[in-house]
């Protein structure tokens, strides 16, 4: 299926829960509200014709200061790139996050990779994921203040860090 067909399929199934669609150079994406992400990913994974079995990437985008900022209702987006091995097709889901107070439901139990990827989005953008078992910083140090990939974080700011992190263990190995 082409990405546009997949997007049409998502749109017909979720109707008004799809906030917007996007198509460019053969790639397509749907924008959805945070509450819908688990439903949409479950739908994509469990529908036989779609069969999206791999979540390839989760990455944040900060639109603070973007040229269309005045019309934009949300500051952040979290982009989920999904891929189907069996059908060899891809699509992108974008979750619109108004500001850092909005919590995005975690999908770590649907796709194991989301555990670490969501931690990275949290670390870099300060977007929190509800239901995540181990939402700690992953790249930056525990003492780091701010979120490095936000547009209002200056590229040349330096921070002094004093202590190594003590404990890396979780209650259960699958949370790590």
């Amino acid at each position, binding site marked *: 299926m082409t990405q546009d067909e997949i997007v049409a399929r998502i749109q017909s199934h979720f109707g008004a829960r799809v906030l917007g669609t996007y198509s460019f*150079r053969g790639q397509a994406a749907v924008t959805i509200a945070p509450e819908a992400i688990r439903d949409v990913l479950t739908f994509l994974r469990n529908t036989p014709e779609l069969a999206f079995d791999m979540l390839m*990437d989760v990455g944040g985008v900060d639109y603070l200061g973007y040229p269309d900022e005045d019309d934009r209702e949300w500051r952040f987006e979290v982009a989920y*790139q999904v891929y189907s091995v069996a059908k060899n097709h891809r699509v992108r889901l974008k979750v619109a996050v108004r500001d850092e107070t909005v919590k995005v439901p975690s999908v770590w139990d649907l796709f194991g990779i989301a555990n670490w990827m969501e931690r990275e989005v949290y670390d870099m953008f300060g977007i929190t994921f509800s239901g995540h078992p181990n939402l700690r910083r992953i790249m930056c140090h525990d003492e780091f203040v701010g979120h*490095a990939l936000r547009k209002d974080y200056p*590229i040349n700011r330096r921070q002094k860090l004093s202590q190594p992190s003590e404990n890396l*263990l*979780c209650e259960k190995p699958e949370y*790590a």
Partner: protein
Amino acid sequence: MSADGTRVQDIPTELLTLNIGPAHPATHGTLRIQVQLDGETIVNSGCEIGYLHRGFEKQAENCQYQLVIPYTERLNYMGPVHNSNAWCHAVEQLLDVKVPARAQALRVITSEMGRIIDHCVCIGTNLVDIGALTNFWYMYNYREKIYDLYEELCGARMMVNYPRIGGVSMDAPDGWLEKLLKVIDEMGEAVGEVQSLVARNRIFMDRTIGVGAIPKEMALSHGVTGPCLRAAGVALDLRKAQPYWGYDKYQFDAPIAHGGDTYDRTIVRFQEMQESVRIIKQAVAAIPDGPVMVEDHLVAMPSKDRVYNTMEGLINHFKLVMHGIKPPVGELYSATEGGNGEVGFYIVSDGTPVAWRVRMRPPCFANYSVFPKIITGAMIADAVAALGSINIIAGELDR
């Protein structure tokens, strides 16, 4: 077993927390693994990454598209050319630029050379970790020869900065392709020799079979790609599934195995090196003549002759250096098959010469996320063997 019939495993011991890394010979990079041990068995583990976090994504959002090329090579520094090729490929898709056939073939050749040396290092160091030093010297010997070829091609050995947006920086010098074929032929033989040293080696098999197995379901759920996924029995190779740079013209196989353990990963890598040798031979045989840069003055630098002798060429050069390449407003995810799996670049362009957002999907990050799960229940020595075979490149893991 002791005299009263209790086995050693049954004797309760105090749990011991042990740190492996961030500076440890077995991690081959700055990784930290914390394990909780019951005797020598790992009962719980956690990983800390980020020691090599250099802010690649932030940097890429603050410099022009063509200036990102050298940074991408510092991601996977074991097979660096693939990353820069992949970055240029992503920007070209954004620009909707078609790269000339000769440049595509040169990209395939340099990328496959990168894959071979990446696997050389992975297999070589993994075998050192489990006690076999000889193979390491064999592998590094040929890695050196590939570096010599890179040097002759573009003047640099490791961080070659060879591709450009719209093609490659320079054509192969006279006689280079013939030299490459000779080295590649020897390479194929050497890989076969090293494989025959370990593939049926009792010690190696005992150390690796069933060790650090990634089951198929776990691999898919964790987004594991590349040799680690193929070793688990999923025949996903983007060079075949979603071909780019004319990979569909070449005859090659994507080797798979079914156990997903350390042994299978090593063997899949050995076979992949042979397939890369096959691809390079075909690419060299079928390499077309023609330009190696696209003819588009908005993307490609003018020739030095034009810059020095015509006003238009000088202005063109000035505009490209000072004002950069301007893709249209849009966003795109480009995926290619690197040495360790899917190398993805998600670029959000706002129409300026500097990307609004660059996200790199590192294959190692996904591959490594299964690590705490596969070593729980294993022993320390098994964790070391498994770590080497997953091939974690800290530069790519942390970016």
